[in-house]
């Protein structure tokens, strides 16, 4: 049996374990909720990770899939959430690498088999590559947040004023005060 087949067979269990590794990064109350509330609209974070990890798993084991845009699109909904939650950048994307540990544990003794270990090495390299893409996605999200912070007031009010030719004596926007450290 090759690794691919084995992974395909165990997809459900592996994705489930991965999901739990992700939600353990939240408080006990939150991980209970993210895991148990199955309604996708009552629990959009849970939904994003359930669907996202399953899709990511498919991309990972499909060695033909090397399009960073598609992989990024799959990572995006998950990273986008973690980019505005209470995480350091490393923590926000760290869940990707958790999958290595999950894999090794799941394969157990089978790892000793040379066919498996080579295939596993390649898979781990893919995980690393996905990690780099995740980093790009994370940065895009953060840049968006900074842009929204800077533009928020200007976009809405100043633009209307500008259109009307009224851009005099406008109160200084707080967004431009510099006590944000």
């Amino acid at each position: 049996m090759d690794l691919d087949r084995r992974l395909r067979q165990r997809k459900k269990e592996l994705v489930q374990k991965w999901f739990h590794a992700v939600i353990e990064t939240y408080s006990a109350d939150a991980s209970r909720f993210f895991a148990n509330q199955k309604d996708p609209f009552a629990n959009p974070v849970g939904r994003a990770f359930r669907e996202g990890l399953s899709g990511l798993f498919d991309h990972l084991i499909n060695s033909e899939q090397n399009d960073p845009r598609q992989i990024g699109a799959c990572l995006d909904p998950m990273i986008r959430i973690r980019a505005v939650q209470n995480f350091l950048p490393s923590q926000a994307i760290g869940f990707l690498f958790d999958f290595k540990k999950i894999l090794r544990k799941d394969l157990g003794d089978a790892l000793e088999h040379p066919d498996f270990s080579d295939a596993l090495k390649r898979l781990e390299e893919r995980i690393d590559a996905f990690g780099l893409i995740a980093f790009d996605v994370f940065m895009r999200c953060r840049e968006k947040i900074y842009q929204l912070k800077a533009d928020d007031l200007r976009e809405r009010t100043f633009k209307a004023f500008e259109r009307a030719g009224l851009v005099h004596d406008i109160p200084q926007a707080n967004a431009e005060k510099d006590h944000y450290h």
Partner: protein
Amino acid sequence: MADDLLKPHELIANIKPRPPQTGWMDTPVKIRKGMYCYASNPKSVAALGFPNAREWNPLDEDWKLPPNWKEIVFEGMRERLDRFRTFKVFMDICVRCGACADKCHFFIGSGDPKNMPVLRAELLRSVYRRDFTTAGKLFGRLAGAREMTLDVLKEWWYYYFQCTECRRCSVFCPYGIDTAEITIMAREIFNLLGLNIDWIATPVANCYRTGNHLGIQPHAYKDMIDFFVDDIEDITGVRLNPHLNKKGADILFITPSGDVFADPGTYTAMGYLMLFHFLQEKYGLEVTWSTYASEGGNFGFFTSHETMKRLNAKMYAEAKRLGVKWILGGECGHMWRVIHQYMDTMNGPADFLEEPVSPITGTKFENAKSTKMVHITEFTADLIRHGKLDLDPSRNDHLVLTYHDSCNPSRGMGLLEEPRYVIKSVCNHFYEMPPNTIREQTFCCGSGAGLNAGENMELRMIGGFPRANAVKYVHETHGVNMLACICAIDRAALPTLMEYWVPEVNVTGVHELVANALNLPGQQERTTDLRGEPLPGMEADDE
């Protein structure tokens, strides 16, 4: 040496976040950037005569509180427990059943347990127990009581400014406990110590001085209206002649200043103007705007009951001065909560006004009998129902709509059907979001109750995520490209929210849609919508 280094996967394992597993009382607050709003500008605090106006920074150890701050908190609580029965009852009756726990958009998005409404309330309740109940005094922590400390105060401040007073939690509470009211009390207490946020304090000071949140003076207000009139003429060929401060007009119209001064609310304001013009031409109805009552919104509501009352007073005063029959109110959220639930008792009775009846259809607006103020979607829905408007919905055919129930009009006043009826009458493509995200169960925009600043963007994005998630769903399944709402804060906050989560979807007010569809007497062939976008079939050839 090298052997001591962690392998990459071990390193990752070690930097995995380990959320505190301590009990909530033992988990001290950490004020995180992106999640809080800047401290109030001392000038704004002083302008309203509030105590302890000074520069301060929430990130500093020292919040420059008055030495007797604990006494002030205690007295502030005592006074409010006596004055507001709801507050006292909500402090006493929670059985911690947890039904509300996972209903707050901030918890759903962030996973921070202190954003569970039950725990948010418990932050204050624990202090209440110790200071105001016998069990708490005797048994302390065993009875869920804790002492007021500076850390507790900071925790209050951080989390009561992470509540948008949306009341979604109260819908699910078997006892009807409304955490929003607890937040309201907490914020009143903060104001006794000079602990407001600037996004609230400065608009309130502006509003007190010039009548609106941005501090815009009457001439600029008029300039904006004139500018709309020019724009509407370009689009429709019809020159409007709106009334400003007109004595003896039939109806006074009051709307949030955001409609006049901020995109995309401005298009909604153009919509109102066109509707009023149509009604004057067809039925001789005179509606006047006011540069004095130039703000329907009321950030005083997020400050204290007294401040809300002060800012609200201009509505009736202006109606009286102008001698109108009754007041029509624009599309706003918290403005309607104030009008519907407080105005009459605060600044009424407005016995100089008539009980509102539509002069065009004869409909009596029963629910506005005491406040004398009618919501514009109700007014317009009634006009449409009686066939009084000349509408061509195909001018909205480039839009696929969904509707976001703003928290206050839906949960606060039960305005659920009218906006939908109006939208469906003026648009051909409308799809609802999933049922557990609309109507009474609607998800907040995440930026209400004065939290729509720029510096707390992470908070806004995470709190608005459940709403955005439902929009994304209808975008993906039905091709929805426009999110309609009847709230000025929504019109300001949702475009930002959409830009982060569902950038393909724009935001509109309902009366922008009405005006796109409305045929004005004597109009030229319309080729664009109010935003200047070409109408379907009117796109200019590229060549």
